[in-house]
C-alpha cells in the first residue's frame, strides 16, 4: 500500500526574550564574558513582532508566500518587508511570545509553570482568540499568581519568563538535585512540547484531520526528556498527542539531529504501508537553545538577529487515497556507516543511488529540498548558503555522470531548488519545510518528482565522528491501483490448462521411455 502525505502544518513562535535569556550563545557568553560588547549591543538588534511577521522567509514558512518568489527579492531580506504579511498562513501561524507563554503553561502537567496574574488578565483574551485553540487547551490556563510569588520562585532556581524587563512567568525545577529536571531543561522541553502541540492544532485545522483518527505520533525534535536515571527516556510524541486531543494515539520519539525528521517520515510511511496504522503524524516543536545561535556575527554585521523564532511542523502520513502525493519507500537514500565523507560519496548515497535504483537520473527530479536554512542567517555567519551549496554538489555529480553540461550548473541550482527559508533550528530546516509547498505543486501537476534530503551532525554528541543523511522521493499519486480480480471461470480455465499441460508432459515422457 502507498503511504501518502495528506496534510502539513508549519508554525513559528517569535521569542525575542527567550533569545536573550535562553539561547545558548547568550547564556554561554554571560558565563564566560559577562561584560562583553556583544551582550551590551544585542538588545539593539532584536526585532519587533511586526518585523519578524513581515520577514519574507517567515511568510514563506507558514505558507503565505511561494518560496520560489523569494528569488524576486534581492538578498539580504532582513531589510525588506513582505507587503501581504499575515499572522496566519495556509500552513500555520507566527505566534507572538506573550501567547506562547500561555501555550507553555498549558503544556505543563506538574504545576511547574506559573504566569503572573496581571499578565494573564492582560493577554488571556488575545490568546483565546486564536481559532486553532481547543477547549482542552483553554481550560488548562490558570489565573496566575502575584508578582512577589513569582520573584520568590526565581530565588529557588526557577527560570523566568519575560517580556522585556517585565517578569511575567516562571518555570520551576522539578527536583532538588537531578540535573535532568532543572528549570532550564524543563523550559527547553516544555517549549518544544508547546510548539509541537501548536503544530498539531494547526494540522487539525488546515488539513481537516480528525483527532480521533490518529493512530500514532512520532516526535522528531532535538530535545531529550527524562530524569537522571533515563535522561533521554522520552516520549515527547505521546505527551503532545495528549494535549492535541489524539485520544486513540500512542507514539514515540525518533532522534538523529537534523536528519531525524526524514528518518521519522520514512518510519511513519513504513508503518502505514505495512498496514500497522492508518494515520501517523510526524511532528516537532522548536528549540530555545538555538535562538540567536549566530547572534554574534549578526551583531558584528550590524543587522538584526534573525534567529528570533522557534519553529514547529507536523506532517500527516495516511493510507493511499488515490489523490495525495506518496512517499516512495522502494527508493530511499541513506548515508551508511561505510559511505565515507567526501561530498561525492555523500551525494551519491543520498541522491544518485536511490535514483539509479529507480531507473532515474539526477535531472529527473524537479525540486530538490536539501537543508533549507535561511541564507540571511548563515551567510553573515560565514556558513554560506546551505541549500545552494547542497544543490551545487548535486549538480556537480550530475555533470560527472554525464547528465548535465558543466555550464548548466547555475541554471540547475536556480531551477531545481528554492532559496532557503527556514529558521536555523536544527531539525526544522531539514528538507521538511518544502513538503507542504511540494505537496501542493504535485497535486496541481506543476512538478512530477520531489526529493527531500535531511542531514544530521551526529559528531556533535561526541559518540561518533560520523554524520548522517537520509532522503526520500515524493511522487504524484496516479490513483489507487486496481487489484486484478480473477473470476471463477477464468480460474477453472487456468487450472484446466495447467493440468492439461502437465498430463501432456507425462505422456511425452512415457513415449520417450518407450
Amino acid at each position, binding site marked *: 500500500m502507498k503511504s501518502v502525505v495528506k496534510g502539513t502544518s508549519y508554525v513559528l513562535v517569535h521569542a525575542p526574550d527567550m533569545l536573550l535569556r535562553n539561547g545558548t550563545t547568550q547564556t554561554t557568553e554571560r558565563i564566560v564574558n559577562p561584560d562583553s560588547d556583544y551582550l551590551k549591543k544585542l538588545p539593539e538588534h532584536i526585532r519587533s513582532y511586526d518585523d519578524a511577521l513581515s520577514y519574507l522567509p517567515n511568510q514563506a514558512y507558514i505558507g503565505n508566500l511561494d518560496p520560489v518568489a523569494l528569488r524576486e527579492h534581492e538578498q539580504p531580506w532582513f531589510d525588506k518587508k513582505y507587503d501581504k504579511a499575515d499572522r496566519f498562513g495556509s500552513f500555520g501561524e507566527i505566534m507572538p511570545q506573550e501567547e506562547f507563554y500561555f501555550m507553555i503553561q498549558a503544556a505543563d502537567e506538574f504545576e511547574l509553570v506559573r504566569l503572573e496574574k496581571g499578565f494573564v488578565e492582560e493577554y488571556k483574551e488575545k490568546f483565546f482568540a486564536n481559532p486553532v485553540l481547543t477547549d482542552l487547551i483553554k481550560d488548562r490556563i490558570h489565573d496566575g499568581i502575584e508578582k512577589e510569588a513569582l520573584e520568590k520562585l526565581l530565588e529557588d532556581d526557577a527560570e523566568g519568563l519575560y517580556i522585556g524587563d517585565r517578569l511575567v512567568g516562571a518555570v520551576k525545577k522539578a527536583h532538588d538535585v537531578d540535573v535532568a529536571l532543572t528549570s532550564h531543561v524543563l523550559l527547553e522541553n516544555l517549549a518544544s512540547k508547546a510548539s509541537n502541540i501548536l503544530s498539531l492544532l494547526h494540522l487539525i485545522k488546515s488539513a481537516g484531520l480528525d483527532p480521533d483518527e490518529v493512530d500514532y505520533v512520532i516526535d522528531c525534535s532535538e530535545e531529550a526528556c527524562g530524569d537522571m536515571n533515563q535522561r533521554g527516556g522520552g516520549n515527547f510524541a505521546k505527551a503532545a498527542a495528549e494535549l492535541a486531543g489524539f485520544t486513540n494515539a500512542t507514539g514515540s520519539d525518533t532522534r538523529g539531529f537534523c536528519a531525524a525528521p526524514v528518518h521519522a517520515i520514512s518510519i511513519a510511511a513504513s508503518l502505514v504501508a505495512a498496514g500497522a496504522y492508518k494515520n501517523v503524524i510526524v511532528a516537532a516543536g522548536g528549540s530555545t537553545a538555538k535562538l540567536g545561535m549566530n547572534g554574534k556575527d549578526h551583531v558584528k554585521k550590524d543587522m538584526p538577529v534573525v534567529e528570533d523564532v522557534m519553529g514547529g511542523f507536523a506532517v500527516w502520513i495516511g493510507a493511499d487515497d488515490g489523490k495525495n502525493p506518496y512517499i516512495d519507500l522502494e527508493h530511499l537514500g541513506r548515508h551508511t556507516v561505510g559511505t565515507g565523507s567526501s561530498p561525492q560519496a555523500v551525494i551519491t548515497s543520498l541522491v544518485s543511488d536511490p535514483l539509479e535504483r529507480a531507473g532515474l537520473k539526477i535531472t529527473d527530479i524537479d525540486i530538490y529540498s536539501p537543508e533549507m536554512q535561511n541564507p540571511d542567517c548563515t551567510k553573515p555567519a560565514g556558513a*554560506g548558503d546551505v541549500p545552494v551549496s547542497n544543490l551545487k554538489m548535486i549538480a556537480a555529480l550530475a555533470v560527472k555522470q554525464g547528465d548535465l553540461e558543466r555550464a548548466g550548473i547555475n541554471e540547475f541550482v536556480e531551477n531545481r531548488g528554492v532559496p532557503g527559508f527556514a529558521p536555523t533550528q536544527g531539525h526544522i530546516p531539514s528538507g521538511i519545510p518544502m513538503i507542504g509547498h511540494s505537496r501542493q505543486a504535485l497535486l496541481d501537476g506543476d512538478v512530477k518528482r520531489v526529493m527531500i534530503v535531511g542531514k544530521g551532525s551526529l559528531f556533535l554528541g561526541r559518540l561518533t565522528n560520523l554524520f548522517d543523511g537520509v532522503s526520500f522521493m515524493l511522487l504524484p499519486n496516479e490513483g489507487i491501483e486496481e487489484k486484478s480480480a480473477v473470476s471463477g471461470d477464468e480460474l477453472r480455465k487456468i487450472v484446466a490448462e495447467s493440468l492439461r499441460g502437465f498430463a501432456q508432459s507425462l505422456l511425452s515422457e512415457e513415449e520417450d521411455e518407450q
Partner: protein
Amino acid sequence: MSILEGKKVIAIGDRDGIPGPAISECAKSAGADVVFSSTECFV
C-alpha cells in the same frame, strides 16, 4: 613535492561542505601530518 609535505595540518570541516575526515584524507595523501581534525555544524 606537495606544499603540504611534512607540514602539520589542522582540518576544520563543514557538514554541508567538505567534512573534516575528507580534508584529513586529502592532506595525509599529500604528505601532511594531521594533528587535529573536526567537523563543525554552523546551523
